[in-house]
C-alpha cells in the first residue's frame, strides 16, 4: 500500500509495480470483469460449439489481425514513451504517446468499419448467442480502448507542459500500465473469439 499512502514516492526509478498502485487495483478489477466475460463465453460456447463455429466464420479475421498488430505496436510506442521520460526527454515521450494514440485511432476505425458491416447485415445482440457475446465483448473492449486513449491523451498533455521528470513520472507509468491492460485483453479476445474453433 506504499504508493497509496505516499503522495510523492521517492526513488521510483526501480519501483515495482510501476506507476501508481491505485491503477493496479483498478487493472485487477478490470481484468476480473473480462475474466468473467471470457469464462462465460467459454462455457456458453461449450454448449453451442456448432453455432459458435459457424458464425465465427463470418467475422473479418483480417481486420482483427490488423487491430491486433495496431495494439501491439501501440504498446511498443508506449514502452518507448516510458523509456524516454525515464531519461527526462519530455518531448520525445509526447511523440511516442501521440504515435500510440494514432494506433488507437486506427484500431477504433477498423473496429467501427467491422461494426458497420455487421449492422448493415442486420446483425444485433438478439441475432444469436454467438453474436451476443461477440458484440458485447468487443464493444466493452472498444470502450476500454477509448478510455485508455483518454488516459494517454491526458498524460501526453501533461508531458507536453513538462509535467514529468526523471524523478517523478509516475503518471506516465500509470497510463502505460492501463494501456498495456487494454492491449493484453485484446490479445486474449482475438484468438478466443475470432480464431479458436
Amino acid at each position, binding site marked *: 500500500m506504499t504508493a*497509496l*499512502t505516499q503522495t510523492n514516492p521517492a526513488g521510483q526509478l526501480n519501483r515495482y509495480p510501476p506507476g501508481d498502485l*491505485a491503477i493496479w487495483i483498478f487493472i485487477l*478489477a*478490470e481484468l476480473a470483469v473480462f475474466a*468473467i*466475460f471470457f469464462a*462465460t463465453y467459454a462455457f456458453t460456447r461449450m454448449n453451442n460449439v456448432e453455432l459458435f463455429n459457424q458464425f465465427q466464420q463470418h467475422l473479418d479475421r483480417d481486420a482483427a489481425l490488423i487491430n491486433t498488430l495496431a495494439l501491439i505496436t501501440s504498446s511498443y510506442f508506449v514502452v518507448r514513451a516510458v523509456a524516454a521520460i525515464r531519461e527526462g526527454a519530455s518531448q520525445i515521450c509526447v511523440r511516442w504517446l501521440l504515435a500510440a494514440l494514432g494506433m488507437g485511432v486506427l484500431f477504433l476505425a477498423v473496429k467501427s468499419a467491422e461494426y458497420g458491416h455487421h449492422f448493415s447485415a442486420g446483425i444485433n445482440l438478439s441475432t444469436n448467442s454467438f453474436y*451476443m457475446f461477440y458484440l*458485447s465483448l468487443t464493444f466493452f473492449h472498444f470502450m476500454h480502448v477509448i478510455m485508455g486513449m483518454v488516459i494517454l491523451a491526458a498524460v501526453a498533455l501533461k508531458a507536453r507542459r513538462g509535467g514529468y521528470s526523471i524523478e517523478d513520472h509516475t503518471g506516465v507509468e500509470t497510463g502505460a500500465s492501463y494501456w498495456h491492460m487494454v492491449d493484453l485483453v485484446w490479445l486474449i479476445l482475438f484468438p478466443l473469439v475470432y480464431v479458436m474453433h
Partner: protein
Amino acid sequence: MQYQSQAVAKPYFIAAIGLFVLQILFGLIMGLQYVVGDFLFPEIPFNVARMVHTNALIIWLLMGFMGAAYYLVPEESETELFSPRLALVTFWVFLAAAVLTVAGYLLVPYATLAELTGNHLLPTMGREFLEQPTITKIGIVVVALAFIFNVGMTVLKGRKTAINLVLLLGLVGLAVLFLFSFYNPTNLVLDKYYWWWVVHLWVEGVWELILGAILAFVLIKVTGVDREVIEKWLYIIIAMALISGIIGTGHHYFWIGVPEYWQWWGSIFSALEPLPFFMMTVFAFNMVNRRRRNHPNRAAVLWALGTAVMAFLGAGVWGFLHTLSPVNYYTHGTQITAAHGHMSFYGAYVMIVLTIISYAMPLLRGRKVAASNKSQVLEMWSFWLMTVAMVFITFFLTAAGILQVHMQRVMDKPLPFMYVQDQIALFYWLREGAGLVFLIGLIVYIASFFIGNNEPEAEVVPST
C-alpha cells in the same frame, strides 16, 4: 464549523431523523401485519403502511444527502454557501411536501389522492416507490434544481476538490434520473424498463457517488490522511461502481419482456457490483489504520467503518446472492429480495447519513470537535443495537426467503403463496422482534442528542 452557512445543514439532519422514526414505526406496523393480517385495518392497510415505510426512507435519505452537501460543500470549497436563504426555503418546501404526501397516503384512499392531485393530467402514480402524487414529484424536481444550483454555484466560486466534484456528479445524476419517474408508458415492459432507471440507477449508480464522497470527506476529517490518497481511492471506487452498476441494471431485466442478452449482461456486470463495496471496506479500514491522529469523535469513526462493512455485506454479498439470472429465476420477488433491500439500504445509505450527522452535528450544535463522552457512548450503543438488529432482520428474512423459494418454487408440488406465508410465519415473528430492538436502538440514538450535553467535550484517548 468553519463557515456560518454550514448551519443550514442542521434542519435537514433533524428532519431526516424525524422521518427516520416515522419510517421505523411504519416498518413495525407492516412487520406485524405480515403475521396479524388485519392489524390496524382498515385505518392503515398494508399497502399504505408499505408506501409510508419506503417513501419516508427515500425522503429522509434525500434530506440527509442535502444536509450532507450543505455541510461539506462550503468546507470543501472553502467559501460560504452561495445562498443559505435558498437552502432554508427549499428545506421548508421539501418538508411540507413530504408531510402533505404522507398525510395524503394516510387520510384518503390512494385512488382519491390520485384524483385530488390531478393525476389524470400527467399520470405518474401507482408505481412501487414512485407512488408520490405528480405534484409532489414536481416539487421534488424544483427542490432538487434549487439545491443543485445552490451547491453548484458554491463549488464554482470556491475550491474544486475531487470530493466536491464526485458529490456534485452524484447529485446531478440523482436529479436527472428522477425525471424518468415522469415517463409512464402504457406498455408494461417499457414502464418497468425505465422505472428501473430511477430505482436502480439511483441506489446502484449515482447514490454510490454520493456515498463515496461523504465517506471520503469524513475519513479525511477524522483520520488526517492526505487528501490526495483518499481522492485516489474515491476515483477508483466510483469508476468501479459505475462500470458494474450501470449495466448491472440488467439484473432487474430478467424475464420482464426485454431481449435475452440482458440475462448475460445483468448477470456478468452485477456479479461485479460487490467489488466497489469491497474496495470501500478496504479503503475505510486502511485509512483509519493509517490515521495521523486519534479523532475525539469516536462515534463518527465507528459509523464510517460500519458503513463500509455493512454496505459490503448488504449491497455486495446479499445482492450477489440472488443476482445471477439462474438463481434469480427462483428467488425473484421473494423475501430474499426483502432481506437484501433491508441490509443494503441500512448499510449503505442509512449509515452514511448517520455518519455525516455523527460527525457534523456536534459541530453544528456548538461543540469544537466532538460531543461529550457520555453522548458518544450512547450513540455507539445505538450503533450496535441498530446494526445488530438489522443483521438479525436480514438473517430472518433470508431464512424466510429460502423456505419460501423451496416450498413455493422448487418442490415437486409447489405450494400456493398464502399457504407458504403461513408456514414461514415464525420467521416473520422473529423479524418483528429484531425490528423492536432496532426501534430501541433508534430511541437510544435520539437520546444521545439530549443526554450528556452539559458535560465537557470528549478528548483524545491516547492510543495504547
